[in-house]
């Protein structure tokens, strides 16, 4: 009697992994009822563990391919002759890791991203919200934004140098421009997607214009605003690195370009990897912020 009861309890407690796993449904039945917590955790998170494992494997293979191509100096039209090997890049990392100059490059790039992106968010989000709510504002601003939007931020470099008194300001301006339009457009899109029934529901509960804006339009647009922020952050990095390579004196983009000029080939790859990691980190930070601000969303 007792083992039978335990089995029933087991199957009730864990229907999900049985249904979704590729193991035949009969298989978990004979499993001993006193499985450890660790085993249960593994069974519940099988999908995620699998993705993690495959991901690690794929990265290892990538590193291995890089290593083999560079160590053997492969040259099949594409030339890996001068490309640094992973070991060389690692050595370069340990060298510059103690170098304050490299860290200041990284710091300056992050600072420029932060200021440019924050300014873009602070201007584009409210502008998008107001454009979404008031037709006249939208009709006035939209044509100008549509004309300026297709111009890549990088094409703004000469103009920006003319406009701003310091190099630093012009680079921040480029970063700002890069992230501005994705944020604006997504905010606007979010405003257009607001469910009119929710607005009606709010009106029936006594909400006036300002309250509807604050309590319905804004939270309803938040998921789209965060999409815009994530995309904007990506474009901000693209624009920043381009601007730094062309007109900068500092920054990780400048570091990468300078490495090429100075024939410091391992530093090129180091700069690139560093940019990748910083971009990944800033996107993750925005996603994390989004989850914090929107606890009602799925997961």
């Amino acid at each position, binding site marked *: 009697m007792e083992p039978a009861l335990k089995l029933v309890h087991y199957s009730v407690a864990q229907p999900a992994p049985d249904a979704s796993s590729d193991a035949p449904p009969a298989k978990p039945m004979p499993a001993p009822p006193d499985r450890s917590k660790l085993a249960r955790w593994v069974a519940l998170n099988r999908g995620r563990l699998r993705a993690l494992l495959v991901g690690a494997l794929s990265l290892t293979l990538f590193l291995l391919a890089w290593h083999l191509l560079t160590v053997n100096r492969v040259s099949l039209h594409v030339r890996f002759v001068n490309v640094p090997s992973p070991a060389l890049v690692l050595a370069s990392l340990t060298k510059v890791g103690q170098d304050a100059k490299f860290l200041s490059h990284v710091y300056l790039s992050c600072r420029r991203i932060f200021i440019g992106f924050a300014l873009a968010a602070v201007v584009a989000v409210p502008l998008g919200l107001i454009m979404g709510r008031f037709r006249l504002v939208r009709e006035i601003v939209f044509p100008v934004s549509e004309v300026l939007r297709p111009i890549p931020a990088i094409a703004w470099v000469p103009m920006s140098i003319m406009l701003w008194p310091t190099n630093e300001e012009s680079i921040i301006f480029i970063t700002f421009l890069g992230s501005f339009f994705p944020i604006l457009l997504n905010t606007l899109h979010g405003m257009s997607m607001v469910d009119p029934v929710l607005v*009606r529901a709010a009106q029936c*509960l006594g909400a006036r214009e300002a309250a509807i804006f604050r309590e319905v339009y804004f939270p309803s647009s938040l998921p789209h605003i965060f999409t815009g922020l994530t995309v904007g952050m990506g474009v901000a990095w693209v624009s920043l690195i381009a601007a730094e390579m062309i007109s900068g004196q500092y920054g990780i983009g400048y570091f990468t370009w300078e490495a090429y000029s100075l024939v410091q080939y391992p530093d090129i790859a180091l700069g690139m990897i560093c940019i990748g990691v910083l971009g990944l980190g800033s996107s993750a930070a925005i996603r994390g912020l989004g989850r914090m601000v929107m606890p009602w969303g799925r997961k």
Partner: protein
Amino acid sequence: MTTATAARASQGFVEVKDFALSYDTLDGAVEAVTGVSIRVDPGEFVSIIGPSGCGKSTLLNAVAGFLKPTRGTVTVDGEPVEGPSADRGMVFQQYSLFPWKTVRGNVEFGLKMKGKDRSSREPAARTLLGLAGLLPFENHYPERLSGGMKQRVGIVRALATGPKVLLLDEPFGALDAQTRVIMQQILTNMWQRLKISVLFVTHDIDEAIFLSDRVYCMTARPGTIKAEIMVPLERPREQAMMMSTEFLALRRGLMSLIREESLKAMGGEIGDGALEGLSIDLHGQTLADVI
């Protein structure tokens, strides 16, 4: 007005007089609803029933204040309706809960709009949620609730501000049959407790009879009132009443009225002669008297 309804609360008297609403199109104005006069006495439960597209939701939206009548007047307690307000609570078919607010946050919304501070909102919301059996879910987000629970929250939210009238637009249309019956029971219970006027739009005949004191039956486009039917079933109503001969007689009568209108709404060209025998003006009488 019967003596029973007169004894109830003195507010929540809805009156729609000679109401018409038309839309402008390239081919000229198209009448959606025309010449409609209805009323809901204080504390009365009134349903509007009709085929899809007959303008019953249009009428309800005009009472809510979302639509301006092209002709005629809409008044609540003698005051003309100028726009939506918390005086007229509304429950929508699509639930329309704020996904970014918890169950309690949704219920508190109307009180917040009234300027009530947090400390007074919370107990009020909790009391109402308790009545609807939703207290264990007060901190859940709507996404995690079932359809029936969402709609219970929708009703509680609309009642929280203490409206004079509750307007419901096919609120149980998206629910499964079993849940719907339970929801009807919950709604009647709350209505009897709160003595509030209710205007209820549905296309479900059983639902209209089971819930209402009076049922207006609407014709297809342009929408007009075809019949007004008193429902003399005693209260409180039990589910078993749906099998009574009285209920079934009402049902049969309404069914024939609706079927004919549905056919018209579907575009079936039926000769006027064939319809003559059916288009009886039942104003003021109970259908049971006629049958």
